[in-house]
């Protein structure tokens, strides 16, 4: 018989109280399709109005609701309560981050590391980037080299599962490193040398033990562990002068002779126009 009621064991923390974090048990009646996020919302609207967490899109896109659910980093919005097969579901903030309040972790370290690795296209044609007149050339094969890493939603689940990130304050962690690889592998980018200067030090991928937990917990199916190994290979080959040098993809005219396939409906009129 399916469980109809579960206890949500929630980690509560109020910095203004001065006390340590504590657990609060709240019984929740399961509804069909109920996610952990739905359960939290029900609790906030009822028994515990002060319960605090971070969420936005409710569909696994924004990456805001990363939490430590039943001992594993997950997104609350795409974790079905029924799939946990547990009468007690523990919900805590992502480990290895300071707690701001209740289930809200302070992700500043993650975003600082991310920003330090220049996660954007680095090219000489700034004007073309800001006011594009044409397109950067890229083949489907070139796109495949980084595509899966671009699915990352920066939820922080991989970092909270990483044993090295937990112990080494200098280590950038899986997400920032995977994003560095995402841009290094992008044929439109020319920033390998700039990123390599940062990645060669303690912020780089050198202390990864390849535990692989980052890839296991990623809710989007990204494989940061693979990105880190590719990053190491490219950096070492680059330092040895064995990496094939390439120029960023050139700017080319957009194709003019394209025709829409008849089975694909015409795009609607844009609701927002560029000023």
């Amino acid at each position, binding site marked *: 018989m399916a469980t109809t009621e579960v206890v949500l064991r929630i980690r509560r923390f109020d910095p203004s109280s001065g006390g340590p974090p504590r657990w609060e048990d709240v019984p929740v009646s399961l509804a069909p399709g109920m996610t952990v996020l739905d359960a939290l919302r029900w609790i906030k609207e009822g028994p515990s109005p002060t319960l605090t967490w971070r969420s936005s899109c409710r569909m696994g896109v924004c990456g805001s609701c990363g939490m430590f659910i039943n001992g594993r980093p997950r997104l609350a919005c795409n974790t079905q309560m029924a799939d946990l097969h547990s009468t007690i579901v523990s919900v805590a903030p992502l480990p290895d981050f300071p707690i701001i309040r209740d289930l809200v972790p302070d992700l500043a370290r993650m975003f600082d590391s991310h920003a330090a690795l220049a996660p954007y296209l680095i090219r000489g044609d700034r004007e073309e980037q800001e006011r594009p007149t044409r397109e950067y050339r890229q083949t489907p094969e070139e796109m495949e080299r980084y595509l899966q890493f671009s699915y990352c939603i920066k939820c922080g689940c991989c970092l909270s599962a990483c044993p090295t990130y937990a112990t080494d304050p200098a280590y950038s962690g899986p997400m920032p490193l995977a994003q560095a690889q995402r841009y290094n592998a992008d044929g439109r980018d020319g920033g390998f040398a700039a990123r390599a200067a940062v990645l*060669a030090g*303690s912020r780089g991928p050198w202390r990864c033990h390849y535990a692989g937990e980052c890839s296991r917990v990623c809710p989007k199916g990204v494989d940061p562990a693979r990105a880190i190994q590719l990053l190491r290979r490219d950096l070492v080959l680059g330092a040895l002068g064995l990496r094939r040098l390439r120029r960023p993809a050139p700017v080319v005219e957009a194709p003019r002779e394209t025709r829409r396939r008849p089975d694909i409906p015409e795009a609607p009129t844009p609701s927002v126009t560029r000023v």
Partner: protein
Amino acid sequence: MRDQRLWTWQIAAGGLVLLLLGAHMTVMHLDALVGAFNPAGGRPIDWANVVARGRTVTFFVGYVLLLGAALVHGLIGLRGILLELGPPADLGRALNGLLLVAGAGLFVLGTWAAWASFLLSRGS
């Protein structure tokens, strides 16, 4: 920069250890196939065989290379583990120096032992 350089050295040394350790295991455990390295017959660890191998330049060089590669690989790995414990910067620097001195000392000691063995067997 140092992290990348050390990691590259560790991987390169690991590759060398794999190669030389494979040769060592072959000599030690596949003596039925490579009996040429055990000219005195009997077991590979018999004194006469050890002396016979130690007097050859190939084995002397192999021992020193294996020693160096194992020390580089192992001590860089040990450094990584110890630094992950998050020591203060001063202690980290002291640790780097200590491991460097320990590695150099062990290398000199091991090389001297291999050299002495090389000379001893030449003289016997």
